[in-house]
């Protein structure tokens, strides 16, 4: 016999508490949005352009000394960061004024300064033009995904479902962007991937719940809508929790054992999937109550306004 991880006959009143949940989530959303607008992002090399070097030195690196050495040879801000191990350092240099030649010249100066005893594990130079395209394509990808999913859900369910799922997804996107902004995590191309994974994962959860609502709408024609939605959420609750736990487990494996690059990549996805699971349960379905799902049917006085 398997362990019953989530009791099967749950009957949590998600719909009844929806106003409290909506208020909390709206506040969190506003905080995230405010941070995005006022704080902005800590754009990484993919977006800002510039130079990036990951080096491995023979002994533990004296970061302070390295910093003062390097700020002498290049213009603008130089940031250094221990990366994974004490003798691995990540060096970020702002884009040097001038064209490609200026970047290459700066790179050569840095290499000269670092001397022979350094293993260059990664060297990147990115121009500003690439960044513009990346931002544009990122926005296209996220918006395109949202619209395509809206259309699909509209086609497979009803337009109300599509609208509610998009509101939920917008919320999840804002949370992930807020995470990047609030904690000033480096915002690179992988950040866009993280947002898209969150969106695709969250829609998965939402669709499973909607599927059940659709089924129950056919099955229980007389059941009040709020009860029906609540019933559907509880029906699928154990699946939602189980699947999310499994996915989070595998992502936690990546976060703790995958090395610094994969860890930086998995963290926003972990947060995004958690947010997506919560919002699928507490937002996407209860939101349907506001959408006149059964216009000809009895609308309950207690829930719908």
């Amino acid at each position, binding site marked *: 016999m398997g362990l019953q991880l989530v009791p099967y006959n749950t009957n949590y009143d998600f719909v009844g508490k929806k106003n409290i949940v909506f208020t909390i989530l709206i506040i969190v959303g506003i905080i995230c949005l405010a941070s995005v607008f006022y704080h902005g992002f800590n754009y990484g090399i993919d977006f800002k352009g510039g130079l990036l070097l990951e080096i491995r030195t023979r002994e533990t690196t004296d970061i302070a000394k390295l910093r003062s050495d390097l700020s002498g040879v290049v213009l603008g801000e130089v940031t250094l960061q221990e990366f994974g191990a004490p003798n691995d350092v990540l060096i970020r240099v702002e884009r040097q004024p001038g064209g490609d030649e200026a970047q290459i010249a700066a790179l050569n100066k840095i290499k000269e300064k670092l001397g022979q005893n350094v293993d260059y594990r990664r060297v990147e130079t990115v121009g500003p033009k690439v960044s513009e395209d990346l931002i544009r394509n990122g926005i296209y990808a996220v918006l*395109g995904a949202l619209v395509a999913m809206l259309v699909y859900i509209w086609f497979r369910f009803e337009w109300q479902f599509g609208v509610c799922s998009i509101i939920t997804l917008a919320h999840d996107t804002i949370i992930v962007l807020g995470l990047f902004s609030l904690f000033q995590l480096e915002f690179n191309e992988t950040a866009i991937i993280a947002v*898209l994974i969150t969106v695709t994962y969250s829609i998965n959860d939402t669709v499973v719940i909607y599927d059940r609502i659709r089924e129950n709408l056919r099955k229980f024609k007389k059941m009040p809508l709020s009860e029906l939605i609540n019933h559907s959420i509880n029906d699928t609750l154990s699946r939602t929790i189980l699947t999310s736990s499994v996915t989070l487990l595998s992502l936690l494996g990546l976060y703790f054992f995958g090395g610094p690059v994969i860890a930086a990549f998995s963290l926003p996805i972990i947060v995004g999937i958690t947010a997506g699971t919560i919002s699928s349960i507490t937002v996407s379905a209860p939101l349907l109550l506001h959408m006149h799902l059964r216009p000809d049917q009895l609308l309950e006085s207690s829930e719908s306004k």
Partner: protein
Amino acid sequence: MIHIPLWKTLLTVAVCLIGIIFVIPNFFTREQLDHFPSWFPKNQVVLGLDLQGGAHLLLEVDFDGVVKEQMTSLMDAIRNTFRKERIGYTGLSPKKDFVTLTLRNPADLEKATSLIKQVDRDLEVTSTPEGVMTLRLNETAMQERKKSALAQSIEIVRRRVDETGIAEPFIQRQGEDRILIQLPGLQDPTRIKNLLGKTAKLQFRFVDTSVNAAPGLVVPGSDVLPEERDGKVFYYAVKKHTIVSGENLVDAQPSFDQYNRPMVSFKFDSLGAKKFGDATKNNVGKLFAIVLDDKIISAPRINEPILGGSGQISGSFTLQEAQDLALLMRAGALPAPLKVLEERTVGPGLGADSIAAGEYATVIAILMVMAFMFIAYSFFGAIANIAVIFNLILLFAALSLTHATLTLPGIAGIALTIGMAVDANVLINERIKEELRLGRKLLSAIDAGYNRAMTTIIDSNLTTLIGVGLLYQFGTGPTRGFAVTTSIGILVSMFTAITLTKQIVAWWIRWRRPTRLPI
């Protein structure tokens, strides 16, 4: 009894076996694979540069340069035609992407227009009654020319990279004006960048010795060009007329002169040999200049007519410079300058570390998921776990077969896929439990579980595929790597999580004839 037709059973087993066969080559080195029988598949998963180590360059073709050059040559052509036809004009000048001129006599307008059309029929001519004319290429012709310039650039880039002997370069058009180059294993792309940074327009031109050239001096009919020699810069006035250009070369090789100094030997085609022979015959004793991208490589004196079509360029070269010059001459000129937009190199150490960390993390993730599934569903969890293993096998088989590239985000995609693949089994198992609770008999509960869960699985997987598809459409290298593994993983999971597990359950029922469900 769950009835599964025999052909479906056979197909399921066959797919799994084929998957295993296609994964096997990944566990062997290339040398070991050479000893395998010839019918055995030998495709391995292609590792991205971030895992394998190597250099990645993103280049942009400078079309403004192409257009400007075309406008300049258009202007020359019009000047010659109008002179011949005695049409008076003023203010002929090339602008960014058009040419303007003013006719002295507006009555010439019709004649001028038809003459211009003869020069280039893709030109659009607009004019005012006062005789001000504007010529520009029409939109389709412009697009055509850009397209062919890009195609030609890629061809030249490929030739130059191939000539350096770098193994397995990957060169691809990206967007409308970009070229992506990936050079696995290359640590320092400086030489490649130098080679690609030159348009390598080679010309043989006469030197105008009547003036003392200095930088900034304007000499009619000539250009003042620099020559760098022994660390100093000399200037020559070089006549605009080109005797022969690089297009007429058939070969160029580095060699040594009698003092053992590096030089480049070259050979013209028959047309080039004739032109060069005629020119040198009539100008013995004069200087000519070998000009590469508006810089003089060498300005030798013509001691005797050069008739055989072959010659040497000796300058103050290092061996490497002679080799690179010969390479550029062989590969031909780029139609437009290239600009490096992005350059990334990953050392082999980091690549190996990333693979190791990725493998380790993925194995741990899989083990945790499997343990979790077993705790949650015991026997049915074990079946789901078999499905997960085959999901991975088929995923890697598909990656090997299609030559798709595995990148670091791709590894993250695999971990995510496992979560999603298990989802189908969670949905099915939850549904079976539910049907049992509703009082159904075991077999009908299993059947209903699979059937009812089906719509949900298809809906949820399709929406996910839509998202991943857009990611592929708009993403670049690393993003695409993620999209590839995730989408293959999801597609494969439809087979492993549904068809395969149902098959296993059917076998189990036939074997054990259970009445209770160990779920």
